[in-house]
């Protein structure tokens, strides 16, 4: 639409398959959220609802590790390290945000000090990083 798939892959630094994985996780997650909210399954804990997102992060890390090892073996050492560092930074920021949000939702009474500004702060950092990377890719 605004970006072509090639530009997205270059900008975000993720392979098409990883984007597919994250979208699939988002779809399953939204279904579980709807299930939880409509009270069809009141016993469903928030940690269980967030499992697809955590699983996508884990699979993406595994995929990136494999790709980086392959790149390293093919003597593309700089590319391998840069790719690994970038993807791990993005995934860890995403994971921190997800864990904090999940904790806030699961333990509303105990996590009263956890304000949303704090939960979303990894996303603010991620936005700055993405802007810097867009200038470099451009």
């Amino acid at each position, binding site marked *: 639409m605004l970006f072509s798939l090639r530009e997205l892959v270059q900008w975000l630094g993720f392979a*098409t*398959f990883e984007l597919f994985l994250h979208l699939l996780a988002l*779809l399953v997650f939204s279904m579980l959220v709807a299930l939880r909210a409509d009270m069809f399954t009141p016993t469903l804990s928030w940690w269980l609802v967030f499992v697809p997102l955590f699983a996508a992060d884990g699979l993406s890390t595994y995929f990136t590790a494999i790709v980086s090892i392959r790149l390293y073996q093919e003597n593309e050492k700089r590319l391998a390290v840069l790719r690994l560092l970038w993807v791990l930074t993005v995934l860890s920021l995403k994971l921190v945000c997800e864990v904090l949000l999940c904790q806030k939702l699961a333990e509303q009474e105990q996590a009263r000090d956890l304000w949303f500004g704090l939960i*979303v702060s990894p996303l603010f950092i991620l*936005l700055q990083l993405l802007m810097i990377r867009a200038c470099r890719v451009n």
Partner: protein
Amino acid sequence: MKMSLAQRVLLSWIFALIFLIMLVLKLDSKIHWNWFLIFLPVWTFDTILILMLIVKMAGRCKPDFDPRDGEQSLKRRLWYLTALLLKLAFCLTLCSRLERLTEMWVSVVCVPLWVLLGGALVELGHSVFHYRRD
């Protein structure tokens, strides 16, 4: 006129940043605005995208347009327009649900989002397997 990648990223970045800031302020109860007002950056961004798409599709009406390369891009642009309208429908129903204008189920609110994600998955999956075949 074609915008560079940095310009397009900047455009999305500004709207995403403003929306996130307003969302956080609302969720932390620092401001007590209407949810439709909180989603103002989303409405503006979607309107800009829809206008850009319509202008591009109107380019087919030009006298020097070559119909041979237009068939595929028209289908693609129609899908993009549908995707944008689905996103808009999801945000509108979500806002009305949050404002308690309607008492519909969250599952019903999420239907446009699921259709949109399903379509995006089919498109992405097609390109993944297409590359593999090559």
